[in-house]
């Protein structure tokens, strides 16, 4: 009794530490400390649980922790910053899987010990167990599809069959029916396993028809699910720290999802069921947009421009991540600054493949974070900008979002790159970004295209700049 109270108080303290940890993440200065605070909360919760009366044999616990810890360690230290979206996807899946495991184990253990007594509370309880299992299972398989799409193990384009939405609706309905059925007949293990399997299929079939460009939204939503699953596992096991921290994670995923949808000017429903990528660009002819209007330039010519430029804005996009050009960009910026120019970075909220993706990459290259300027603040500055360097960004600079009503990205707020005196676009070809649309920016009179791999082009520009200076 005394021990239980003590343990519950310790759990409360960990929950508070998690909250303070997230609070720390609201400022770059306190973020490292915040993460540590949260980790201390986790350590406390884990250590305290070793004293739990039901924890009698430590073998499996130690084994699982060693195995999982080792995998986590390797993943966290080996991963390249450019592959962060994939890592987050995998971790979401594992989080959902863990909650699924907890709920399933709790259910099966109770069944093994003679089943649930027939009363109203247990009906509700078993229904919560079923929901936890369903959400956990969807999160698990859905996250792995998202991972596979991002890693290009399976094609990024939307995949499905006619009537897929109806199929998914039937799966959801069946899972809910099974939940209620299990609640009424708590000992029916078949219902239980069936719900688990249906949910696993649902995870796959929900994510397959969504295009690769929308994976960040999906990941963020699955992040939220993994939190909610953890929280529900807390209801199941009567553990407040699970409830509170899962809920925090759920809120976080929801907010990030919303931020992304707002930044793309699309509804969540449109992302999940719209299959924008599949239908999008097809009716706009790229040749017509580009024909005869493309001016290309060599890195040396760009260097000449940069030598005399006063104000340079770098607009990084997913191509910077793909070509790992972040360090090269930093060196180019240093070179420009040595020539007397001033360099800032324009960060679009959905540049790259996850929120804050560009910030992390540029931070890796030691670009001070006060040089990274958000869209709202930098858009007014393009007019005074001598050279805007668009490095592997495409959709987030596409003026069609402003004026091509009916285009799939119409209404999405974009970076007003076209207002700059000269625009330099670095990419490998004229091919489209993730929205699959041609970009009239490339055809403007004040735009110069530098064709080539992002990193190589930037290095060439830097070399030319240093040589001439």
């Amino acid at each position: 009794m005394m021990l239980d109270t003590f343990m519950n108080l310790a759990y409360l303290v960990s929950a508070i530490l998690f909250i303070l940890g997230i609070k720390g993440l609201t400022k770059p200065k306190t973020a490292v400390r915040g993460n540590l605070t949260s980790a201390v909360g986790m350590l406390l919760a884990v250590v305290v649980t070793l004293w739990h009366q039901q924890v009698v044999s430590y073998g499996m616990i130690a084994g699982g922790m060693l195995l999982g810890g080792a995998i986590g360690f390797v993943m966290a230290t080996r991963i390249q910053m450019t592959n962060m979206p994939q890592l987050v996807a995998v971790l979401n899946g594992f989080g959902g899987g863990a909650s699924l495991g907890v709920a399933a184990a709790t259910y099966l253990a109770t069944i093994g010990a003679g089943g649930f007594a027939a009363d109203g509370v247990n009906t509700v309880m078993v229904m919560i167990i079923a929901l936890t299992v369903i959400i956990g299972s969807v999160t698990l398989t859905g996250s792995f599809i998202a991972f596979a799409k991002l890693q290009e193990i399976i094609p990024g384009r939307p995949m499905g069959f006619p009537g897929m939405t109806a199929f998914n609706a039937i799966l959801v309905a069946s899972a809910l029916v099974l939940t209620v059925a299990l609640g009424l007949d708590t000992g029916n293990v078949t219902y239980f396993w069936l719900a688990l399997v249906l949910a696993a299929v649902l995870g796959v079939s929900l994510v397959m028809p969504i295009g690769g460009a929308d994976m960040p939204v999906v990941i963020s939503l699955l992040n939220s699910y993994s939190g909610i699953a953890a929280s529900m596992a807390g209801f199941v096991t009567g553990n407040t720290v699970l409830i509170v921290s899962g809920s925090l994670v759920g809120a976080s995923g929801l907010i990030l999802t919303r931020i992304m949808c707002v930044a793309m000017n699309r509804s969540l429903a449109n992302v999940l069921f719209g299959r924008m990528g599949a239908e999008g660009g097809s009716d706009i002819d790229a040749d017509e947009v580009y024909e005869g209007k493309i001016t290309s330039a060599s890195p040396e010519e760009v260097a000449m421009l940069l030598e005399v430029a006063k104000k340079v804005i770098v607009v990084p996009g997913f191509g910077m991540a793909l070509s790992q050009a972040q360090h090269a960009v930093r060196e180019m910026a240093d070179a420009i600054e040595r020539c007397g120019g001033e360099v800032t970075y324009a960060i679009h909220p959905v540049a790259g493949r996850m929120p804050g993706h560009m910030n992390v990459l540029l931070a890796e290259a030691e670009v001070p974070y006060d040089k990274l300027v958000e869209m709202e603040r930098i858009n007014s500055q393009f007019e005074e900008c001598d050279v805007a360097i668009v490095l592997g960004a495409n959709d987030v600079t596409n003026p069609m979002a402003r004026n091509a009503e009916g285009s799939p990205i119409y209404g999405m707020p974009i970076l007003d790159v076209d207002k700059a005196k000269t625009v330099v676009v670095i990419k490998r070809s004229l091919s489209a970004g993730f929205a699959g649309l041609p970009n009239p920016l490339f055809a403007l009179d004040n735009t110069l295209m530098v064709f080539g791999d992002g990193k190589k082009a930037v290095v060439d520009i830097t070399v030319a700049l240093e040589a001439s200076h």
Partner: protein
Amino acid sequence: MELLVMQLSLFVLALMLGVELITKVPPTLHTPLMAGTNAISGIALVGAMIAAGDPTAGAVARWLGFAAVTLASVNVVGGYLVTNRMLAMFKRKS
């Protein structure tokens, strides 16, 4: 049932608190935030430990517990480490 309502209250309050806090996180930190919350959702480890450490439960339940401990540990260790790695990059220059 009273307990369930209490738990629901905790859930709702934490959700609202989460919303207030997360809306204050600047875009720069959104990627670390995602990884950091991944780590926090590894809190399922606590429930998993109880499931895996109970010798009276059946084999399937315990192996499910073991799997849950493993997955949650990946989240905890991987999540905190990678978040720290990212944040350390931000810190260097401040």
